[in-house]
């Protein structure tokens, strides 16, 4: 069965390119374009992995991450955090909230595919 990856980012173009390369690598992709939608989908779809953007309107990535990681039902889903920020303090917040990986924009698509494969094709 195909592994499910949820992509949450308010930048549609970024979502689209990620979806393209991940589908090309045989992942089943679900997309959400804001935090609220992302959280809702995470609970409905129960993905195997989430790619999450930090800066989003309404609910930001850290908040979603915290909500999921503190919920026994979802806490084992790996979360890859994507951000344009690279400041160290942001990383610290990420670590606190239980982010599994950090990816700074601009990123290499190959790098992301490899990371997702690393988590899901063990």
């Amino acid at each position, binding site marked *: 069965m195909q592994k499910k990856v949820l992509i949450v980012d308010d*930048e549609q173009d*970024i979502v689209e390119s990620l979806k393209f390369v991940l589908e090309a690598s045989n992942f089943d992709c679900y997309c959400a374009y804001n935090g609220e939608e992302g959280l809702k989908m995470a609970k409905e779809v129960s993905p195997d992995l989430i790619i999450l953007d930090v800066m989003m309107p309404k609910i930001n990535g850290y908040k979603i991450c915290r909500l999921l990681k503190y919920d026994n039902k979802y806490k084992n889903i790996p979360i890859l955090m994507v951000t*344009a920020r690279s400041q160290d303090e942001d990383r610290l917040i990420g670590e606190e909230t239980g982010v599994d990986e950090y990816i700074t924009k*601009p*990123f*290499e*698509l190959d790098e992301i595919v490899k990371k997702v494969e690393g988590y899901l094709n063990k």
Partner: protein
Amino acid sequence: MAKVLFVSEDMKKTKQFKEILEKNSHEFFSADNQLAAFDFIKGFTPDIIILDTQVKGFDLKAVNKKIKSYGDNVLTILLVGEETIEQELSKSANAFLQEAVSGDLLISTINANLRTKNSLEMLSSSNQELARSLYQLNVLYNTSSQFAGTLDKNRLLDIMVEGMDKSLSFGLSCALTFRSENEPVLIITSLYQISDRLLEALKLRTILNYKSLFKKNEIPFELNLENLKIEKHIKQSNKEFDFSVLRYDNMFTPINMSENFFGFIEIYRESEFTTEDATCFQTLAQQVSLPLKSASLYEEIKKTNQKLERLERLKSEFISIVSHELRTPLTAIKNALDILLSGKTGALTEAMDNFINMAKRNVVRLSGIINDLLDLSKIEAGKMDFKFLNTKIEPVLEYVKTSLNEVAKEKKLVLKTKIEDNSTDIYADAQRLEQVLTNLISNAIKFTPEGGEIEIGTKIVDAKEIKYNSIFESELKNLSGKYLMVSVKDTGIGIAQDDLGHVFDQFAQIENSLSRKVGGSGLGLPIARQLMDAHNGAIWCESELEKGSVFYFVIPVAEGKNNFLLNLKQTIQKSKVKNSPVAIINIKGEKEIIDRILEEKNLINKNYLNNSVIEIEDNSTVLSMIISDGDKFSADFLKKKLQGYIHSISGIYPNCAIMYSYAVSPQDSTDEWELIKKVQESYVNIRE
């Protein structure tokens, strides 16, 4: 001529004395009973009282006492007979006369005593005047030294009013000043409360006074009843001044700030002002003029500085925000190009591949520029986080060499290393070091024609041995002690002598057509310089056109002092961003006491040292602490605790002392480097 009162029951004697005295043009008054004598003294004070001790009918002692209660200025002459008089009475007498005194003797006794009295009075009044002048001078002196101690205009005015009050003891003073162009304030300093109608009168008077100082169309600031604010300082609230105070003697003077109008002051006193008082008043008002000018200049500088700082911050924030905003679309472009290049969307023709690669190359270049800009703005804003550790240069060098080897090979360049030292530790952030080295080597690769050679060398040098072109004087003159020196030498196109001084300037190379051809943001070298600066190191270069260039940088070797200074610099910079104070406490003493202080967990608990650095000299006789991120209070508190502890064990360790402590808030200094320098000097002093 004197007023003489004769107290006696003897009518004959009274008549005789009256004749003698009036003949000698003295005024004569007499009293033949106790009540009359009292009434007389109550009415006015005579110069001389002659008491007839033969008087039986009333209590002479009581009369004498009454006289003395009016002051020592009354001369008492006793008229005595055969019998002895009471001691107390005799003591208070200025002269004694026999009952059967001749007229001549009476007059000469009175005159002699009067002369003495006049001389004494003159002496006493000149003494009083002298004392008052001395006191006024003293107040003037004190006030002017107080003027020197502040750069706050309002405080200067307060000091002046205080000084006037002390030297002239006025009842009421009204000082007008303008806090800003449209904020006139009337500062009323008064002994008693001010009645409402008096206050209204004073306001009106102030406005009139103000307008009278200028020609009608030359009034500098608007002043009316509506915008005039009142500031009252009342000393005693049990009494109240009313209109009567306006009948007091008064003095008025404008206060100038250098040549310009600043305000004025009017003071009121019940007793009349003397010429000396007027001089004192004028002097005080003139003395404040210059300090006021300095204060106003200081205010201006402070404002400009704040504005500059704000602009600087805005610039950094702007760059940071713009760069972040640029990254997202850039990522989308890059992703799209990557997908096309991956061939997953279909095969590409050679020309398509060529152009998409061109687009991608430029996206990568653009990201590089954005990263450089971000780095630079972060360093300038003091927001760059450095992770200083004891590091060796070799692994960093190897890493950079490996990552750039491919590019060098493509250009058929030889990349050589000449390592003279690889065992000495430097105190550095390895990642930043790598950034500097990458910058220098990739520059060398860019600017060296095919077949050339690049040589990277490392060695330990003493600051005194370093040779450099004088244009880098300002960068290198402050170096001292041992450094690790890294050099990157190429056989490239070189840099013209005229440009040598500008290679580390921001955006300098963007103007250079060659740089445009080879790519890059032109920010690599400015960033390298900032990074070296942050390491307390230096970077410079030498070059010859068509022959090649050598870039050098030096980093202090890891040792107690260097590491401490670097940590200190970091702490102060961060504190400046956060606007929190920094304190430094140094303790010098035997090794054991340093160990004991460190072990005392209650003494230096975690709260104080949350973000501080503890540094111990190798021989463990100096303990230096940087306390930051707290408030000044916590640093003071820690200092007191340490002092107390050291005092309590001073019997065991007599040679231990807190040598230096320095608490400072970043706002205190407009120049953080000045601050760092001060602390550094103190640090060096204690260790020598």
